[in-house]
């Protein structure tokens, strides 16, 4: 899924000097190796998803998506992402702001903590929630007294999704904001701006492309998450199945066309994510290019 795309740094291709270039045969060998690899491991499976999805024709494809359980899964996925992504935007921006614009004790620890979901297996993440909030957990009696269901219900799924996707935005913003430094914010403060005005009018416009980029990756991962959600969901059809879980069940029950129809939705999401991502990168480069062009025209 799109979640595996690396989020660190938007590399701007440096100009390649002749000195570091390899000879022609070596270059061809390397390029064809890379292409063959990409074809076998990425392009071919992607094509297979779509060809399987449509193997029994449009009619079946359409029916598979309109089936009530599939529809419920789509809805739950949208709800989970719709809650997790905004919360992670708030958290990510706040964390990146704190880390890059202030110096405080335990900063390094906070950075490490943000990376935790990348380091921990999603299944473990899901399990910790089951242990904490499940029927053997320390919070269970209080939760059941107040009739709050977390595990095997939507709140657990949302929480697992938040956990897994929470580094994406902070990780995208931290290097960007570090590079920009604090002098613009200081300038705004000396001019009398409040903290909120400084954030809204100075910081936010400076990070908007990075933020959008982070949101897109975060969203892709939130909708595609399998492991952590699988543990806390309980796989109740029509209730606690997200799209990835629904696909697994359909597949295990030999409804191949239905499974691949839903899978094609996620694949489409991945393609759209990549498209928007490159569009954003292009737009940012283009803006810089225009600015530098304009600067060159000046005497």
């Amino acid at each position, binding site marked *: 899924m799109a979640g595996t795309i690396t989020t660190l740094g938007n590399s701007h291709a440096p100009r390649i000097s002749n000195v570091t270039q390899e000879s022609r045969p070596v270059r061809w060998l390397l390029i064809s190796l890379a292409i063959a690899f990409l074809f076998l491991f990425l392009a071919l499976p992607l094509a297979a998803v779509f060809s399987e999805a449509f193997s029994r024709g449009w009619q079946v494809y359409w029916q598979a998506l309109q089936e009530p359980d599939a529809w419920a899964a789509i809805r739950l996925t949208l709800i989970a992402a719709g809650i997790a992504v905004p919360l992670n935007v708030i958290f990510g921006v706040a964390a990146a702001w704190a880390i890059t614009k202030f110096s405080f004790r335990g900063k390094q620890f906070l950075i490490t903590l943000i990376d935790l979901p990348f380091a921990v297996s999603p299944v473990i993440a899901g399990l910790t929630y089951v242990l904490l909030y499940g029927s053997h957990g320390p919070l269970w009696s209080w939760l059941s007294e107040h009739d709050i269901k977390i595990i095997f219900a939507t709140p657990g799924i949302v929480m697992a999704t938040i956990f897994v996707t929470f580094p994406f935005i902070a990780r995208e913003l931290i290097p960007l904001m570090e590079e920009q430094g604090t002098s613009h914010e200081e300038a705004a403060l*000396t*001019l009398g701006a409040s903290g909120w005005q400084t954030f809204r009018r100075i910081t936010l416009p400076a990070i908007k492309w990075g933020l959008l980029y982070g949101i897109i990756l975060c969203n892709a991962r939130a909708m595609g998450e399998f492991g952590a959600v699988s543990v806390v969901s309980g796989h109740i059809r029509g209730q606690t199945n997200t799209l990835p879980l629904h696909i697994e069940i359909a597949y295990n029950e030999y409804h191949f066309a239905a499974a691949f129809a839903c899978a094609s939705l996620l694949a489409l999401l991945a393609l759209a994510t990549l498209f928007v991502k490159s569009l954003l990168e292009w737009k940012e480069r283009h803006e810089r290019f225009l*600015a530098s062009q304009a600067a060159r025209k000046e005497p």
Partner: protein
Amino acid sequence: MSIEVRHLSKHFGAFQALDNISLGFPSGELVALLGPSGCGKTTLLRIIAGLEYADSGQVLFHGEDSTGKHVRDRNVGFVFQHYALFRHMTVFDNVAFGLSVRPRSLRPSKADIARRVHELLELVQLDWLADRYPDQLSGGQRQRIALARALAVEPRVLLLDEPFGALDAKVRKDLRQWLRRLHDELHITSIFVTHDQEEAMEVADRIVVIHQGRIEQIGTPDEIQQQSASPFVCEFIGQTNRFEGNIKDGWADFGDFRLETPPRLQESAKLAGYVRPHEITLHNQASDNSIPVTVASLKRLGPIIRLGLVSTSGQDIHVELASQQLPKDTEVGARLFATPIQAQLFAV
């Protein structure tokens, strides 16, 4: 608006940036904080602005204690070394920013803001750039816009952190003369930080020389240059020749030459004498107050000639002369006699 700081100290970890600094900035003056990099001058400026807080000590604006006041309530104009213009805003919006973020009750109307911005852009002579973005401006233009932006909020004091540090030599010279004229027009109390002694000499009414977090000397450019308070100041504010000697019979004796001693220096103390390159004359004939030297290098810079001399004892001596003062037929390798006219003397 006068500014005063009392007993300011500041540490960064184990590094002492400021060590018990007390200092007054009289109203309407343009004062330079001069010193080598890392001496604490920028820290002092940022503490006055409220961008940094001191470990101890006070900052007073017009006699009123402002030590704990937030930067946005201090009403200072701050100009950054790298301009810190808002890249996503036009020049107009940059200058208007300070007025547009005021609370609604204090905010001027749109038309008033526009009028004020154009006034300021005219003041910095860049009205024709109002619709440009900062990326489209040259360094000198950006710094002038940054200054207009700082002035827009009618600050009580203007603080400039190495304002010309990122500019090339020609622009830097133009801009500092321009800043001096602007200050003469506005008379706003201003402090600027620089490590360039020439810049400080040219622009400032008074100079504060800072070294290792302490004040070495406060004075007018002439005082700093001609009555340096310490060997450090002497060496820092321009090229100079150091001679070592001691006091004999009431005279400062440097072996080859001797000079009158001020009464403050005691008999037989060890002395360091600093002689500036233009305080030495050259002759073909020896006198009882001259150093025999050989010309090692000779450079003509327009009307001025710069010589590198080596004394018989092996010391390098730098001399600057008007070309008509150079003894005839002087060339590299020639033997001459150098006479220091005056020196600044310090007991060491």
